[in-house]
């Protein structure tokens, strides 16, 4: 099916463990984004990627690592999870027609709990 999918949908992990959240899109869009959503803060940008092998920090990148070896995948890794990283994570990918308007598509979200 065409679209953007995140996995897992729910994850519980322990403090100090490494965990990777996956994001996959089927359109070959250039840009992909990772956001986290916390009560009182709305959605904040963690990292984004403009193309394969091109990534950059967003507003709250500390404690996260991303990679983009293939255009369709944009995994987000918590190298050593902390309780403050308990959140809902959203992946997004906008269309990118040069010179024209863009429309963003979002995954269903991953609810991560760090205990």
């Amino acid at each position, binding site marked *: 099916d065409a679209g953007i999918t995140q996995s897992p949908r729910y994850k519980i992990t322990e403090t100090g463990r490494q965990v990777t959240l996956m994001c996959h899109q089927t359109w070959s869009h*250039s*840009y992909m*984004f990772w*956001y986290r959503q916390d009560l009182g803060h*709305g*959605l*904040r*940008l963690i990292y*984004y990627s*403009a193309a394969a092998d091109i990534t950059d920090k967003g507003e709250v990148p500390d404690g996260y690592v991303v990679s983009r070896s293939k255009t369709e995948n944009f995994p987000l890794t918590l190298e050593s999870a902390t309780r403050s990283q308990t959140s*809902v994570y*959203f992946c*997004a990918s*906008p*269309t*990118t027609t040069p010179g*024209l*308007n*863009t*429309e*963003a*598509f*979002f995954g*269903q*979200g991953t*609810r991560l709990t760090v205990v």
Partner: protein
Amino acid sequence: GIQVEQSPPDLILQEGANSTLRCNFSDSVNNLQWFHQNPWGQLINLFYIPSGTKQNGRLSATTVATERYSLLYISSSQTTDSGVYFCVGGSARQLTFGSGTQLTVLP
């Protein structure tokens, strides 16, 4: 980067009432979207509206790009309209969320 401000932050309505949500953005945008976050946390795309007016059932939206604002209208509200409404603006390189409007529709 672009700033996106939404108002009001909270809104409580009686079922059947109409409402208007506003989104102001600090710079010109190639993307302006309205989302509804349902009780399960999913972001439901309501409108992609970088300019002009669109309608979908009881919902409509208008973006005046030259004045850098967008409005979301909800008519004859229903309890299922409750949730958080987000405005997202920017470009392919940067998508910025507003802080959202928490809408509660009472039966």
